[in-house]
């Protein structure tokens, strides 16, 4: 292929593809969404939807999911599907609690990461060196992690006072920071329940009140991941292993090395997520504590189109719906019905504008049903509240999945020398 043709091919999507959202547009969308939420809050009177506690809870619940999602992102960007995130998280919870119990919380964090890295390394050995199907290896790691942690608990936590073979003794927490002044001011402002202002105050307040240092670290990891993967030559090489390992090899990239690094880091991030669960979120290790968050993290990553920002948005959505349900959810989720119904009305207009009449009709019918449900009832059964985050994910994916693009060689086994 001549150089001109190749250049033309690369250039083509730029003109014909979707416009990239600029920062002002993004801010405008966020402001619009917040105004809508605020409107719904005032109509429904569910003032807890954007309270300081709600936002804080959402953040705390989003962090482990987000860390698992980041882990998935690292691995899949290098072309390795990591369904073993759940197992690596389990290792993180156990090792974090074990070291945290003996040497304090920060050693716990370190050991949580190490535990996860070990899981990641095993995944790398099986998938990269031995070329086994990635999903098979991930499933095996999930089983092994459950077995190992349960087995080890018998020899460690079971012998400590206050611990048992299923849970650790109480653990020392990590320092939490509150920005003095600002936090109280935001809290007061939020209490007035003014349109928009109180909601904004609730969100800012949630971000500056009793914020665990580990949460700050986790939040920083999102831009750091973006910078490393998209702005350094290391990141470019790593991503090239996920897009076309053969081409990368031809250019002299040691594909195995990059895959090993990526999958090990992936495990470390999932392990950190696990350590967060046992050290910050609950201050105790319990069997089955991860509760499928590794899988949810994977979903958040796909939701975010294999990009850190989108992944963080997905994790935030999960965290928010989770926290809605924890904080006396029936009323809050009832208000969310209204929000969803209004959003669907917007979708209807958008689809009419795009001349997609069938889709518009379907959206209108669903929206009408939601309005009816909202006005005929006062509460949503708590079981439906539990399901809300999962239904939301399905809906969002159904609406947006066709725009997603995963790394081209994701999950494809690769052997050294294939390019020759």
């Amino acid at each position: 292929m001549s150089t001109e043709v190749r250049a033309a091919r690369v250039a083509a999507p730029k003109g014909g593809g979707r416009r990239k959202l600029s920062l002002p547009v993004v801010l405008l969308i966020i402001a619009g969404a917040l105004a809508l939420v605020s409107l719904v809050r005032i109509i429904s009177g569910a003032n807890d939807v954007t309270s300081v506690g709600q936002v804080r809870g959402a953040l705390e619940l989003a962090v482990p999911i987000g860390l698992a999602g980041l882990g998935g992102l690292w691995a899949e960007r290098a072309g390795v599907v990591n369904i073993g995130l759940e197992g690596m998280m389990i290792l993180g919870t156990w090792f974090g609690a074990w070291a945290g119990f003996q040497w304090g919380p920060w050693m716990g964090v370190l050991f949580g990461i190490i535990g996860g890295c070990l899981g990641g390394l095993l995944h790398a050995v099986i998938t990269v060196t031995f070329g086994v199907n990635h999903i098979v290896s991930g499933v095996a790691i999930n089983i092994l992690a459950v077995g190992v942690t349960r087995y080890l608990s018998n020899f460690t936590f079971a012998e400590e006072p206050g611990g048992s073979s299923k849970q650790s003794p109480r653990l020392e927490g990590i320092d939490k920071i509150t920005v003095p002044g600002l936090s109280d001011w935001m809290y007061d402002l939020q209490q007035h329940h003014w349109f928009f202002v109180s909601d904004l105050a609730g969100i800012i307040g949630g971000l500056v009140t009793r914020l665990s240092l580990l949460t700050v670290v986790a939040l920083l990891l999102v831009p750091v991941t973006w910078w490393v993967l998209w702005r350094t030559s290391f990141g470019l090489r790593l991503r090239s292993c996920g897009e076309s390992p053969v081409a990368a090899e031809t250019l002299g990239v040691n594909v195995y090395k990059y895959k090993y690094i990526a999958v090990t880091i992936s495990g470390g991030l999932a392990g950190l997520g696990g350590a967060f669960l046992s050290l910050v979120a609950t201050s105790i290790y319990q069997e089955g504590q991860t509760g499928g968050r590794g899988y949810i993290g994977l979903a958040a990553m796909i939701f975010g189109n294999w990009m850190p920002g989108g992944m963080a948005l997905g994790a935030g959505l999960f965290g928010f719906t989770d926290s809605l349900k924890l904080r006396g959810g029936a009323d809050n989720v009832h208000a969310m019905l209204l929000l969803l119904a209004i959003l669907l009305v917007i979708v209807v207009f958008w689809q009419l504008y795009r001349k997609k009449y069938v889709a518009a009709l379907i959206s209108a019918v669903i929206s009408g049903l939601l309005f009816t449900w909202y006005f005929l009832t006062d509460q949503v059964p708590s079981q439906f509240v539990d399901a809300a985050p999962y239904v939301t994910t399905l809906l969002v994916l159904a609406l947006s999945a066709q725009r997603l693009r995963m790394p081209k060689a994701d999950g494809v086994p690769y052997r050294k020398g294939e390019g020759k």
Partner: protein
Amino acid sequence: MKKFDKDRLILGFAGPVLALVVAFALSTLVLLISNRDPFELYRLLFEQVSYSDVQVLIINQAGAYYLAALAVAVGFRMNLFNIGVDGQYRLAAMVAALVGASVTLPGPLQIALIVVVAMLVGAFWAGIAGILKTTRGVSEVVATIMLNSISTSLIAWLILPKNFGEQAAGSNNLTTGDIPEAGWFPGLSLSAEAGEIYGFTFVAAGCGLVYWLVLNRTRFGFDLRATGASESAAQASGVDAKKMILTSMLISGAIAGLVGMPTLLGDTHTYSLDFPVGLGFTGITIALLGRNHPVGIALSALLIAFLDKASSPLDQFGFEKEIATIMQGLIVISVVVSYELVRRYGTRRQQQKVGEELAAGHALTTEKEAAL
């Protein structure tokens, strides 16, 4: 050609043997590190198998595992990953139990109704993921994970006494009411103390046969495997890939619907809050171990069921029964790795052989040429 077949046979056995040796060695190592006598443990495990009641437990468990693994395997043959077998079978068992408890039909019809309802519900639940994949391009992995969680909530809501459930007096457990005796699937009783093998276990074995026949002896099975091997190639030869995805998702779900049947029809006769969970995930392991082959799956289902059931009394003898889970993980890893190693060795050997033959052939011709 014959010689090649002998090689393949040896290599075919080398995989599992290597895997078992490695898994055995690693488990022994774990036990030695944790200061437990490995051989005493292995002796205890095998001693358990000699008890007839444990044998029956293993076989009954293996039956359910077998169905779960078949459901997963249908997807795998199509390159679809149905993680949602777990949610599908629980929802199916629950709805089937409800229908079974509220309808009274003569014997076999009652059973047939329950089974058909279970298959339909399982297919419906998997079909949601199938439709999302074919029309909206949603990854079936994520969709089925979400559907698992949604089915948990849905069951919790349906089983409330104010909806369809019942609460037995003096107990916290919620049930769906008892299925009348006409809907009980007769089992095979070995002896009074051993208990009985669920009749549905034999149906499960039959499903394995049907699975093999459909996949290997029908046009549909060929299309399915072809689409799994290469979607674009299958499409080029006239297979409607989208239709295949939806159909195999529906079939996978229908089989998943059967997973709860051995327990429901043979033992509990009602769906309650303590109905066995997690079989779908074990099914994934078993399908992988058995390499999607009906006989392989049967053997692995028995192996995993053996480790599950034979390990439960280990606590009484000073061992941690969690070692069985570690052993399951180690077995899966060593099986897949050793299969891959043996496959690579086989390919290399074949290449070498062909190379040698070619070189020899080449030498012959040059001699001939030299003679000319």
